[in-house]
């Protein structure tokens, strides 16, 4: 018990929480945008891998860090466009298209990595984002500007969703596409835009791993974070503020299990602690499911003139 208090009193713990939360915040906001417009995007896991890879490769090739983030976002947009073409244009199964994109993006990234570095065992490193130690705020000054960006993005997206005509149109397309169409909103255009923007955030979420949390690209480094974002959106009832809360809560438990695992007197095998985040996600899904207010048109393809 004293151990637990020690852990919670240590600022380093909260620094870790915010760091672990950052890719989850970006990814969850990405999924949220897609789903608010009525499209599930299971491509996230692969898009994060691709973003982590291309962002890092760009910086390794000499681009500035923020350009790397931009490249990762662009990579996400390309896969987002593919997902939009398949699900919005052709009305294919959103589940299958997303999974296909995850497999494709992951395979392409690993292939690209191996072609670029055929005989390397230890991955080459870059100089990642530096902490913002000029900030007069504790904990936040140990983070990089990418974290600050993610945090600022939450109110920005909430504002767009709830306070602008664009946000209204986007939500309408996800709730009632027929009504949106009759108001002169292009359902296909709106959905494509939302998927592309959301996928850009997913790519950036991946780039946080290689450009900020670590300084190299590893296989399996995304390791299910994308799927957790998908669960977090349900937990957040499709609201940006709650998404931030969910990501932080989740990161809290993830950081806690890491500490407990390291504190030496762990009674259980370390794998049990590693399971916690996933168990927690499922629990959250079940608890929230009853009152979940899904966007009404989620996963329903829309064809003009059809009902």
């Amino acid at each position, binding site marked *: 018990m004293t151990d637990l208090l020690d852990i919670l009193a240590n600022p380093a713990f909260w620094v870790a929480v915010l760091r672990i939360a950052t890719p989850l915040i970006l990814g969850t906001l990405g999924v949220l945008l897609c789903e608010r417009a009525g499209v599930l995007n299971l491509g996230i896991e692969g898009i994060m891998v691709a973003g982590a890879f291309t962002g890092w490769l760009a910086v390794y090739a000499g681009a500035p860090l923020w350009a790397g983030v931009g490249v990762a976002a662009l990579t996400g947009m390309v896969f987002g466009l593919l997902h939009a073409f398949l699900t919005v244009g052709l009305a294919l199964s959103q*589940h299958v298209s997303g999974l296909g994109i995850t497999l494709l993006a992951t395979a392409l990234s690993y292939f690209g990595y191996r072609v670029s570095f055929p005989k390397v065992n230890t991955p080459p490193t870059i100089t990642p984002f530096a902490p913002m130690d000029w900030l007069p705020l504790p904990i936040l000054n140990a983070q990089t500007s990418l974290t600050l960006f993610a945090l600022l993005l939450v109110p920005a997206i909430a504002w767009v969703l709830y306070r602008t005509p664009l946000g209204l149109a986007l939500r309408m397309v996800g709730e009632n596409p027929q009504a949106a169409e009759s108001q002169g909103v292009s359902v296909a255009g709106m959905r494509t835009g939302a998927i592309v923007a959301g996928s850009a955030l997913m790519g950036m979420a991946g780039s946080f791993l290689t450009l900020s949390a670590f300084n190299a690209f590893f296989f399996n480094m995304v390791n*299910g974070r994308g799927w957790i974002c998908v669960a977090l959106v349900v937990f957040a009832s499709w609201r940006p503020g709650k998404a931030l809360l969910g990501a932080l809560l989740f990161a809290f438990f993830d950081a806690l299990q890491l500490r407990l695992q390291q504190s030496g007197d762990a009674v259980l095998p370390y794998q049990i602690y590693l399971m916690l985040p996933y*168990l927690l*996600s499922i629990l959250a899904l079940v608890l929230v499911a009853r009152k979940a207010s899904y966007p009404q048109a989620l996963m329903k393809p829309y064809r003009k003139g059809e009902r």
Partner: protein
Amino acid sequence: MRLERRHETSRAALVLAPIGAVLFTMLVSALLVLWAGAPVGRTYALLLQGGFGSVFAWSETLTRAIPLILTGLAATVAFKARLFNIGAEGQLFAGALAAVAVGGMHGGTGFELQPWLLFPLMMLAAAVAGALLLLGPALMKNKLGVDEVVTTLLINFIVLLGVSALLDGPMKDPTAMGWPQSVSLQPDVELGKLVAQTRVHTGLLWAVSLAVIVWAIFKYTVLGFDIRAVGANARAAEFAGVPVTRTVVMVALLSGALAGLAGAIEVAGRTSYVTLDMSPGYGYTGIVIAMLAGLHPLGVIAAGVFVAGVLVGADTMSRAVGVPTYIADVIVAASLIAVLVATLLTQYRVRMTK
């Protein structure tokens, strides 16, 4: 862009669409071969030769196809009822572990029984383990509306960590020099070789028989009808008196059991023990195979052999010309997307509108 339903779709188009899509994928993937700096023609020739070009190649391909056919069937059964089971990977490991728990040799985990009794018991345990793993997500979907894709995916991670804990602890082989590896099966419950001096084992007969059984279930039984009805439109099926919940439960049990058997048969036929790397994602590849086969149980056999050939061939090819083996995964994933599009085009006509 607008889609118009075609009035009729020819049988030939349905068979040719996936083949055309795969050929198209290979054509596009040639760009990656060029990027890797290898001659395209020779690379593809080596890939085909490595997968299908000799008795040895065929034996390796068929060995690899066994778990893929089974996970492909697992995905097919579930997807037919629109139960998106993405958890075949976890179910495979659960089945493998159950098989070793029942039929394991030293360490005192297994039972001491006659092989004629122990073998069916072992397979049953594996099937039950896989089935139970999918039952929870299926019921959560049906009763609470929790998306089964996310739950089955998350359970994969939980199962793999659980397997890892067991391989470090209670199920660890004390004679394995510290490697995280389970105890071995008793030799008398292992599957025999189908062809001497190769790795192909009688699990292939299991996989093919199960494909035929699943096909027969779809075609000739009430359950098969119910599954298709639920898959087509659950609400309409409910209205027409189809027992939706019972059907979903049956589908979950069947699909999970098939994936569990995939694990048990891998252990009994190939490895004889469980390791964390016994499956390089067979559960996920099974999804692609099911889609390539157009959710047809017999097509799964062909698709499974094809994908296995690409994966095996890529290993040989990579050693010869140095194109990374990941190209096989790219081809498989891109084929999935291309086949989806091609199949759609057999049913719809695309009209451009302004």
